[in-house]
């Protein structure tokens, strides 16, 4: 072959159109619900209409009389096999963990909990037969308010536990040696601002409802599930049901979104698994949207008590955080760990000497909470970014100025924060300058003043959020120190096929993130093979046996690096064979653009494809060398990565109706090096939509009986295209020094940053009217009430007394020295 080929342009950095689109845009998809197997039966689940009740009697036998019904089970029937659903994150040694059966046995603890199943020939017959099941409940008191739940003599969610308190978890920088005494900092402070913020309960609301198929025929039980975590699910199914792990295979086919909501081992998965195993026939369960909103885990739901201490000229001296985190009725896979992840992010980008964090996990009779996009970090970022605005207002300073005064300067990286994290790199000054320009900051501030001066009924507010997040979950030793039940590494392997094509196996399990495209780009660069020649395999424990799946913005920063490491090993092995073929010394070989050439003799060349074929034939390999250049690598990061950015939001508020409209949204994100700018930008857009939705639209609401009143898409307001603005996004790249690609992570950035940007803008517009907080979501009603009821933050959305958090929650007034 000729040796004059031009060096191909690097794939990394190009906006490659996605490979996975080919099947998705023509409907040739493999959603779990599309799977049909011979003799397959369908499961329908009967769910508790009560939030808290004892099951005094249950009889499923009448359902067996219905047409096409094959079997029906109550929790009592499955009690011996179903075990207790796992919580992998005991954050304290004495954490209270209630028993969590997949099908309730004696008691139900939230409305929507599964109590019985019917198995029938088709979905409709199974659903119809649910009505025949006879259940008698003895109602028990509901527990809906976290503050009340902790009071002496409070009604209990789990009476056998004697408390509604799951754990108290404390981080004190003074005690940890990463900071000074918080008490002293506050005692000496010139200014203290106190606030109580509420992080409302949200629902991940992935578009594909969860579906599970179990095929028990054959030697290995196969479970397809619309899950983010096939590998974790396999292990946990084995442990929970006592099935030998090597006899379980889990497949996540095409998965329609997750956002943390499918980072779970669900009752529905365990039920489908056990029922399939019992009946010896393939079974399928597919939830309705209402079931999904009711019984798939929720997110957020914290009450945050915050105090910040500063000097009169705005230098932050200390931060105290007290959280009540609503666990809901049970502890899911990582439920208790979610607020703890946030513990490290409250100090954010700011330098401060003192920091104390306390969190209490509280049980209530509601759906359990767990990871939702950002998981603990949006809550933390919201708190600190709102608080910086409140501090600025207290001191009469510009909110940008107070941030500049306290943030870590670009020349100070790497920087160890008061929470003990080492931030790898960043440039907050540059991102902010760029964002201001993109936003037209000065002009909008001028317009704001003009509107204020002329008492325009439509007021303008400007919100700032200068955020960072920790991505790339996670260094295994850090997870170990936080008592998490697993590591944070990721695995990849590369198979060089005889024809020169390449198979890449990854342990990350995508559900919309475009791994197939991005991983192909990485491998194309590493091995010098065409992008089109790479096939990425994932999401099946039989194909990709080792992995820790996709969440926490970890795929690229951990899983992508595992791919790089595997590729490096392939090249190392290929080098030996190339040297043999070229009769040259290994050290004299250069590997560029997919070929080994002898230095100084560029005509002597062997491509990686030629080497793959020669390895396959294995006729003439170096002595002692096995005939394979395939490789496998497991990468465990040393540190997290810390993307950051500056987000600016302008809202227009109609002070007569309380309506909030986003006038402009601009952001500059620094996510390190970017493999595929198109995909990265898409991640930012989607993240922004979800963060804005928290600020303005979404809230899971329970009534005073503990019923979810936002149980359909009519009431749970996932924004449509009409509800969201155009986003002006740009990025800058401060490469991450901790990994060979210099990448940081992008999946959660938009969500984390945008919520406080929007709420800061809302409060900024209303501050001249004496408003210093508006509860999320900032609905027209809340904004109107905040404007018209002095000292109000808008209160609850529904009529007083009818929902979980009773009455309007007034923030304590700002303190002072």
């Amino acid at each position: 072959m000729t040796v004059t080929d031009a060096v191909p342009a690097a794939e990394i950095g190009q906006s490659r159109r996605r490979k996975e689109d080919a099947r998705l845009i023509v409907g040739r998809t493999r959603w779990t619900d599309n799977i049909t197997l011979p003799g397959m039966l369908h499961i329908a689940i009967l769910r508790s209409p009560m939030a808290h009740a004892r099951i005094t009697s249950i009889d499923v036998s009448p359902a067996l009389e219905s047409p096409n019904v094959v079997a029906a089970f109550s929790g009592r029937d499955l009690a011996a096999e179903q075990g207790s659903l796992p919580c992998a994150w005991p954050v304290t040694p004495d954490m209270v963990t209630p028993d969590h059966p997949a099908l309730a046995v004696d008691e139900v603890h939230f409305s929507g909990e599964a109590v019985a199943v019917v198995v029938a020939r088709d979905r409709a017959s199974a659903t119809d037969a649910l009505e025949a099941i006879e259940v008698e409940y003895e109602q028990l008191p509901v527990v809906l308010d976290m503050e009340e739940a902790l009071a002496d003599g409070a009604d209990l969610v789990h009476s056998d536990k004697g408390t509604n308190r799951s754990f108290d978890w404390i981080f004190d920088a003074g005690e940890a040696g990463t900071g000074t005494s918080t008490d002293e900092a506050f005692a000496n402070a010139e200014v203290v601002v106190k606030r109580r913020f509420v992080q409302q309960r949200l629902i991940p609301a992935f578009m594909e409802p969860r579906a599970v198929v179990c095929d028990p025929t054959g030697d290995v039980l196969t479970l397809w599930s619309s899950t983010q975590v096939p590998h974790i699910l396999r292990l946990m199914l084995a442990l929970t049901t006592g099935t030998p792990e090597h006899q379980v295979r889990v497949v996540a086919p095409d998965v329609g979104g997750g956002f943390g909501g499918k980072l779970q081992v669900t009752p529905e998965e365990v039920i489908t698994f056990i029922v399939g195993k019992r009946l010896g026939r393939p079974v399928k369960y597919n939830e309705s949207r209402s079931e999904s909103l009711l019984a798939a885990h929720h997110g957020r739901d914290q009450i945050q008590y915050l105090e910040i201490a500063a000097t009169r000229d705005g230098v932050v001296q200390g931060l105290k955080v007290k959280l009540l985190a609503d666990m809901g009725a049970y502890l899911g896979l990582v439920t208790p760990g979610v607020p703890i992840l946030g513990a490290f992010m409250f100090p954010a980008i700011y330098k401060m000497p003192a920091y104390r964090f306390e969190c209490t996990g509280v049980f209530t009779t509601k759906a359990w909470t767990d990871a939702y996009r950002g998981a603990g970090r949006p809550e933390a970022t919201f708190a600190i970014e709102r608080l910086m605005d409140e501090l600025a207002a207290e001191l009469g300073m510009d909110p940008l100025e107070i941030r500049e005064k306290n943030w870590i300067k670009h020349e100070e990286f790497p920087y160890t924060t008061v929470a003990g994290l080492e931030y790898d790199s960043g440039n907050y000054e540059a991102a902010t300058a760029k964002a201001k320009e993109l936003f037209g900051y000065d002009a909008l501030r001028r317009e704001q003043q003009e509107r204020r001066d002329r008492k325009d009924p439509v007021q303008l507010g400007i919100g700032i959020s200068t955020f960072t997040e920790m991505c790339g979950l996670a260094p295994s030793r850090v997870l170990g120190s936080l008592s998490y039940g697993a590591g944070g590494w990721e695995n990849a392997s590369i198979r060089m096929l005889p024809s020169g094509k390449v198979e890449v196996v990854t342990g990350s399990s995508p559900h919309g993130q475009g791994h197939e495209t991005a991983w192909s780009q990485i491998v194309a660069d590493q091995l010098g093979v065409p992008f089109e020649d790479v096939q990425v395999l994932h999401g099946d424990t039989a194909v990709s046996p080792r992995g820790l799946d996709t969440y926490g913005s970890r795929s690229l920063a951990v899983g992508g690096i595992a791919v790089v490491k595997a590729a490096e090993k392939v090249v190392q092995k290929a080098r030996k064979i190339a040297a043999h073929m070229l009769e040259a010394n290994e050290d004299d070989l250069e590997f560029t653009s997919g070929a080994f050439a002898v230095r100084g003799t560029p005509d002597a060349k062997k491509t990686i494809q030629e080497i793959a074929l020669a390895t396959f034939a294995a006729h003439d390999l170096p002595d002692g060398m096995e005939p394979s250049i395939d490789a496998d690598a497991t990468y465990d990061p040393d540190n997290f990565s810390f993307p950051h950015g500056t987000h600016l939001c302008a809202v227009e508020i109609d002070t007569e109706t309380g309506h909030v409209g986003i006038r402009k949204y601009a952001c500059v994100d620094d996510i390190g090096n970017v493999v595929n700018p198109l995909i990265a930008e898409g991640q930012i857009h989607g993240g922004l939509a979800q963060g804005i939705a928290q600020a303005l639209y979404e809230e899971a609401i329970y009534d005073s009986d503990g019923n979810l009143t936002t149980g359909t898409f009519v009431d749970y307001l996932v924004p449509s295209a009409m509800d969201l603005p155009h986003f002006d996004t740009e990025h800058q790249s401060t490469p991450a020094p901790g990994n060979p690609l210099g990448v940081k992570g992008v999946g959660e950035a938009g969500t984390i940053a945008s919520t406080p940007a929007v709420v800061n803008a809302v409060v900024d517009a209303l501050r001249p009217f004496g408003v210093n907080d508006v509860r999320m979501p900032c609905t027209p009603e809340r904004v109107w009430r905040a404007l018209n009821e002095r000292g109000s933050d808008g209160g609850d959305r529904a009529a007083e007394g009818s929902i979980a958090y009773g009455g309007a929650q007034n923030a304590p007034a700002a303190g002072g020295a």
Partner: protein
Amino acid sequence: MNRIHVNVDGVSYTDDVEPRQLLVYYLRDRLGKVGTVVGCDTSNCGACTVLLNGRSAKSCTVLAVQADGGEVTTIEGLAENGTLHPVQRAFHEQHGLQCGYCTPGMIMASVDLLKDNPDPSEAEVREGIEGNLCRCTGYQNIVKAVRAAAADMRQGVQQ
């Protein structure tokens, strides 16, 4: 059981269906047209959108018997002779999808929108696809894709 005759993606079917059977389940469970998906039970999400007699319809709001004598185009029948519809192409080019679950419905709704308005503004696109929810993209690239497809199709007509 009611007997229906319906043409789906160019193929004629005759089937006996239960009167309560929704079109979307007829397509999925009976015909194996699983490219069309279900995202909700309150007709809010638009994931199930198909063209029924040339106009977009949420197939979870239509009974199979109502499609009797009609013509249905699903996402699987949109490409002609292996050539993608301009809207499909534009969704790919503009990265108008991530997980892809909303995509079949989103594309079918957009095809219909462009029939009425061959040159929609950004605001008109947003309004036009209001009945279709996407949880992944934040809609920006979907809006871009629909407008790019519109431009493409106008070009095509002129040629």
